């Protein structure tokens, strides 16, 4: 039976059994390698199993992996943090700080403290996608150098191609126009009725 089928079976009938932990841990390992897609429900189930038993250091590596995997989604990371065993908090300090930096849009600060991403390009790219989505919400244009530092790229790297980026022009990265990052055109109608004004102007 493939790992995906085993995980699906665990999730349908055995997600509260501690005997399912090895399968769920294997799933996390494969997700980190990029061999299987992200599986938030299974990762959450693993963390809940850990949070229902006394903490041991053998739990730390899978916990760190699934926190790393969830960094590309603000809601998923926050949801997992609430379930994280209290005894693992100190060991996961850096990862928690990384999540906070992303939440506060301190992207430069994030790349300064990041750990665990060095050799994992898939995860790096998914986090960069999240950063660019956030940037495209608030910026119409941003200096290229600032943009690169926010993506953890060096000054010599070319600007990565992402769907939210329109073009690079005159040293600035121009984002695609959306309702969020552009001035709303046209005045809103106030619906002033002339008859009412005339009546009170006598």
């Amino acid at each position: 039976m493939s790992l995906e089928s085993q995980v699906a079976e665990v999730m349908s009938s055995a997600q509260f059994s501690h005997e399912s932990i090895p399968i769920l841990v294997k799933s996390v390992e494969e997700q980190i390698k990029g061999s299987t897609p992200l599986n938030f429900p299974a990762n959450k189930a693993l963390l809940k199993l850990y949070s229902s038993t006394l903490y041991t250091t053998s739990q730390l590596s899978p916990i760190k992996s699934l926190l790393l995997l969830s960094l590309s989604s603000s809601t998923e990371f926050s949801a997992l943090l609430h379930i994280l065993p209290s005894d693992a908090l100190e060991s996961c300090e850096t990862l928690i700080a990384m999540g906070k930096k992303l939440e506060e849009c301190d992207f430069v600060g994030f790349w300064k403290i990041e750990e665990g991403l060095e050799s994992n390009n898939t995860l790096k790219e998914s986090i960069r996608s999240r950063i660019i989505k956030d940037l495209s919400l608030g910026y119409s244009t941003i200096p290229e150098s600032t943009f690169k530092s926010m993506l953890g790229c060096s000054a010599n790297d070319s600007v990565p191609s992402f769907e939210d980026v329109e073009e690079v022009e005159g040293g600035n990265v121009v984002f695609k126009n959306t309702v969020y990052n552009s001035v709303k055109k046209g005045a809103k109608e106030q619906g002033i009725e002339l008859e009412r004004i005339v009546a009170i102007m006598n």
Partner: protein
Amino acid sequence: MSSEPKDEIPSAVRDFVFDLHDACRRSQRPEEMKALYSGVFVELSAKHYTHKPWPSAEEMSSECESDELFLNFYSELTTRHLFNNLRPTLNDKINAWKTYSSLFDQMLTLKDDTKADAFHVLPEWAFELIHEYVYQFQGFCQFRTHLAQRTAEEKELLEANKDVWDVGTVMKHLHGLIGASGLKTDPTGASAHGQSLYMMGYFAALSLSRLECLLGDFHGSLDALSCMNINEKGELYWNIFAARVSLSYHAGVSYFALRRYRDAAKTFSDMCSAINKGVNSGYLKRLTGYEQFMKLNDKMLAFLAIISLIQPAIKIEDSLSKVTNQMFGDKLAKVEGGDEGFDEIFSFACPKFVSPVVPDYKSSEEPRNLSAIAYSKQVRQCVDDIKSTSNLVRLRSYLKLYTSIDVAKLATFCEIEESAMANRVLALKKTICAQLEHQRKQGPPLAGTVVDHGDVGFHMAGSTVNVDPVVRGSKKTHRFFLNNVGSAKELAADVLQIPDFV
């Protein structure tokens, strides 16, 4: 739980058990069951069992043809009486676990029973039964994790009964009931295998939401409600006020913890308004559990007070806003002034989070209260989120004053560095534009659409923040002026008619 010799059991009590069994099995008339469950049982408890438990199931078996399923329900009912009126011992807590396990294990076999529909249970009975189950689980977690207060005998008994109130089994019971009821495939219950199984499954989903909230799985808490339309009058839970209050409170807390403040505000506001109406009409005071409703009402108002401070764009109903200002105005004013205070308000408002971990009773280390640690962790994490969001309120106020402003100038106003200011502007934009909102009557509670409710629109071009002038002027103020200009003209005409005025 034997209480008295068989021949001393009052005949009224025997008749009650006979009648209740008959109502559940044969007549199945809700009004009859309600009169027995909510009326006769309460009267007999007050008359005969104020200071002692009800007769055991074995003693009453002759009154109900030794019907095992009914006797399991009877055992649960009398267990609840014991916990609500007497001082249960550790053995009582362990026996309660056995009672619930026996009942649920038997319920789960009903899905294969061709006569499953031959047993009916009132919706309020099903709700109160499962609500109490989760309540007892919560209490037992607090009890067993508070090691410093446990005697050596208690630790020995707990060690010998490590499986009792195990969270995995509790989850299996609740999920098992939900699955067996067919609720996920058919929420209406039309294809349910038996009325009692449907009732138990339905309220298991509601109580699962509460349990997940207490364990800190806020995502799971909302997911558990996916088989029902929350805030819909037609839903089964709507007619049981205690169920409505519990659902609204825990769903609201979950939305709040997931930073879906608009959904949290809507959930809390709707429930607080309903409680307010119930108090004013006098209806609520006649219900059992009135004090608990008012406690939860105060907690929900505290959440609304926090939301109104950290998300000023979310408008709270005037009547509720008035009450929150009266109750929490002083504390919020201190917080606005820069003092610490969110911890206190949040600790008052939040549920009693617990840890489901079974401690090491034989450990020689300094005993730790794992539930208290879990509670502190949830409070700390939520308060950190609140503080991060509240940092953005001042920025929003400044943006409303300008059409465009340099990030550097904004940074000077807020007394932070320019790079940190740019991050904060972007974070504010995310808070306004990227918040999920559940659209009523559309999809489960976890689902949502990103809706831009910002009362101030802005974006950054390089190091300049451009504020959208159209959105700033979008309030329809013309009607206000037109109405008041007309009124002022009439008033002026009246004044001029006063003799000797000029």
